[in-house]
């Protein structure tokens, strides 16, 4: 990954332009050819730097007002196996293993759920609880009450790797 790759990612965070040849437009901004840009994007996808290219929906605007960060205290022996199962649920948008922070924070598995109603979110949470079963010692759900800041990835393109 070189500085041009970083520039591509940085430039693309504002979104692809809605013009017939968006990659061409982006390539001109950076000063490379559209072919080079598309090859680099393909390569970064192959390397796993780019997870996917797509239109990113705004869940909240689409009616998903009940966004819960569910957090679970899972037996460390089973966390990878169970984390993969939770991550595969089609209503879970993010699923991460994070460290506990004892005694304040006993939870090591995080999964984001999105419901149009509180009931819909509660059903999703129950499904996760059922899946985790006895390997989950405790859980909580933290609903967001205010979005204070939401920006795309911001990384200076000229930062040396």
């Amino acid at each position, binding site marked *: 990954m070189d500085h041009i790759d970083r520039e591509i*990612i940085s430039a693309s*965070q*504002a*979104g*692809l332009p*809605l013009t*017939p*040849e*968006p*990659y*061409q437009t982006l390539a001109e901004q950076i000063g490379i050819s559209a072919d080079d840009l598309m090859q680099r*994007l393909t390569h970064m*996808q192959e390397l*796993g*730097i*780019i*997870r*996917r*290219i*797509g*239109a*990113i*929906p*705004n*869940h909240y*605007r*689409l*009616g998903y007002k009940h966004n819960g*960060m569910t957090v679970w205290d899972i037996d460390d022996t089973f966390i*990878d196996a169970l*984390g*993969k199962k939770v*991550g595969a649920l*089609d*209503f*879970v*948008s993010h*699923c*991460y*293993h*994070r*460290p506990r*922070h004892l005694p*304040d*924070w006993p939870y090591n598995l*995080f999964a984001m759920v999105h419901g*149009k109603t509180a009931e819909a979110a509660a059903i999703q949470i129950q499904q996760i609880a059922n899946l985790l079963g006895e390997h989950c010692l405790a859980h*909580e759900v*933290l*609903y*967001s*009450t*205010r*979005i*204070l*800041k*939401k*920006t795309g*990835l911001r990384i200076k393109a000229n*930062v040396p790797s």
Partner: protein
Amino acid sequence: MLSFLHQQLLNDYQQDFPLSPTPYLDIANTLGVTEEEVLAAFSALAEQDFISRIGPIIQPNQLGISTLVAMAIPEADMSKVADIVSQYPEVNHNYEREHRFNLWFVLIARDQPHLANVIEQIERQTGFKTMQLPLLEDYFINLGFQLDLDSKAEAILVSA
């Protein structure tokens, strides 16, 4: 209401947006509509903020280093602390949540010293401690959240 085309664009192009010289034309050909219709529909979705953007989604920790941070802030200090935190360009996704730990944000920095420095500045400036919960493993498998768009979404697209 979202038209059928809007729904298709929202659900079918969260991944595999074409990487070709004319992606909107490719989508139009797949869906049996014109390129102009696809561009107009995406423009409407973007204007109404139903999509935040079209582009690459970066895998966490591939560019620099990041961590989730939580803080427990007394209600009276919340606005002040939230404003201080949000001012940092390294901070994104800053949320208030219902919990003793009521302020949650993601910090992205170019390396570990930079990250540690920002944490220290935030703690000094706000007077409150942080709890850092960096990513250990990402279990994300499904590549697109299936949106339920049929039931009358609050979605009201005026121009489409």
